[in-house]
């Protein structure tokens, strides 16, 4: 479904080839500064790659104009640092739908259903500024999935959350991916989280993909020694 080749950005990311398949949940792990967030930003076309090419459905991605916007609209990125708009919870979740010109009725249906899923129906008209960390994170995810993107990019969506909230959000992600066949690429520094939810794990270190493979394999018998050290929490850098 999508092929990414040779991305290079200020020497922080150097990927020879990365092919992602539709409907799969990818867990991207790697030490701090490895380039995980950068990879997501490049896929989401928020940053241009310095060289190399990205192919979506086999086609090279347009660098600007409507083509780029259309492609971007197939994706959603939830940032490492949650940023909600200073507006109501409801309007936050509706943002992407409004940007795509959905009609009012459809927007209402979707937002209300999502509010229900994240258990925040009662907080619909609360100002986003007043939410707790866990609540804000749930709204950010709901906002990203509202318009049913084909690719969902998640950057440490559960950092700083407590176990209860982590579980809730992990369930939400898995359900989403399974129900709607969404491709999920989730960056996490928590290897256990990758283990819990990913189909495939990508281990990045110093801007390079060290190893990529089925979760099972990466955690039981990885090809690469540094992968083994990392998933066992023994890598010191």
């Amino acid at each position, binding site marked *: 479904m999508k092929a990414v080749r040779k991305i290079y950005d200020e020497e922080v990311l150097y990927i020879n080839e990365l092919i992602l398949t539709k409907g799969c949940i990818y867990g991207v792990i790697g030490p701090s500064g490895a380039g995980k967030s950068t990879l997501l*930003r490049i896929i*989401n076309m*928020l940053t241009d790659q310095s060289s190399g090419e990205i192919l979506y459905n086999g086609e090279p991605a347009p660098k600007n104009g409507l083509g780029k*916007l259309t492609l*971007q*609209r197939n*994706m*959603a*990125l*939830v*940032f490492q*640092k949650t*940023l909600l*708009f*200073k507006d109501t919870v409801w309007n936050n979740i509706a*943002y*992407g739908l409004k*940007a*795509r010109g959905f009609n009012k009725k459809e927007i209402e249906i979707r937002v209300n259903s999502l509010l229900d899923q994240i258990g925040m129906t009662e907080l619909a008209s609360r100002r986003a*500024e007043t939410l707790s960390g866990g609540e804000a994170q749930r709204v950010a995810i709901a*906002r*990203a999935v509202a*318009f049913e993107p084909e690719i969902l*990019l998640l950057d440490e969506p559960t950092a700083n959350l407590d176990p209860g909230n982590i579980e809730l959000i992990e369930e939400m992600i898995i359900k989403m991916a399974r129900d709607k066949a969404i491709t999920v690429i989730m960056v996490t520094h928590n290897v256990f989280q990758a283990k819990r939810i990913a189909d495939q794990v990508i281990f990045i270190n110093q801007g390079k993909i060290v190893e990529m493979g089925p979760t099972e394999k990466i955690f039981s018998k990885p090809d690469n020694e540094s992968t083994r050290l990392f998933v066992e929490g023994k890598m010191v850098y």
Partner: protein
Amino acid sequence: MSRLYEGLLEALRLIISFDPDLLTIVLLSLRVSITAILLATLIGVPIGTLLGLKEEKKTGFFNKIIFTFMGMPPVVAGLIIFLILSRQGPLGVLGLLYTPSAMIIAQVFLASPIVIGLTMVGIRAKGGEIEETARSLGAGSALAAWTVVKESRYAILGAVITGFSRVVAEVGAVMIVGGNIEGHTRVMTTAIVLETRKGNFELAIGLGIILLMISFIVNSVLYTIQKGGKKN
């Protein structure tokens, strides 16, 4: 001592009785400064937003210029506008010198960099993140920019109010380009200087009190906004 006291009493009487001279001056001051700040907002907010969304490195040169212009001494602004608007200057034919328009132009010249600079700083604080969040949710360039402006409304409002408080209080520029013509270009600050020099302390004190009150109100609003802005 007594002059201070009597001046104060008389000043309060002038204020309470809506003395027409005082009222004319206050209204003109407000008209000039509010017009100037509205124009400066129209100029400054779009430019400031644009610059704020660019990486700091890329606008380094602009930054310095803007920050210098933000600190431009009012008398220098007055001198420049004077030389331009005087009949021998490039825009002399318009005959704008010694009119409220000239004062508005000078104040726009003073306030725009402030609005641009503070808007830029405010947007830069979070604008990039906001823009990326908007784009990641499928917003096009226009919607993304509008979202940035909306989200940075506290910073922008703060920029505008700071600009206003600066121009309404300055005397150097309006003195030079306005000429301090009674009933026509005499504003609070120039009137205070004139009346102090003439020894009419009542009117000077009365205007001083009003100017201080305006300054107090404007700063209270600014303070509330900035507190509100920080909270979120």
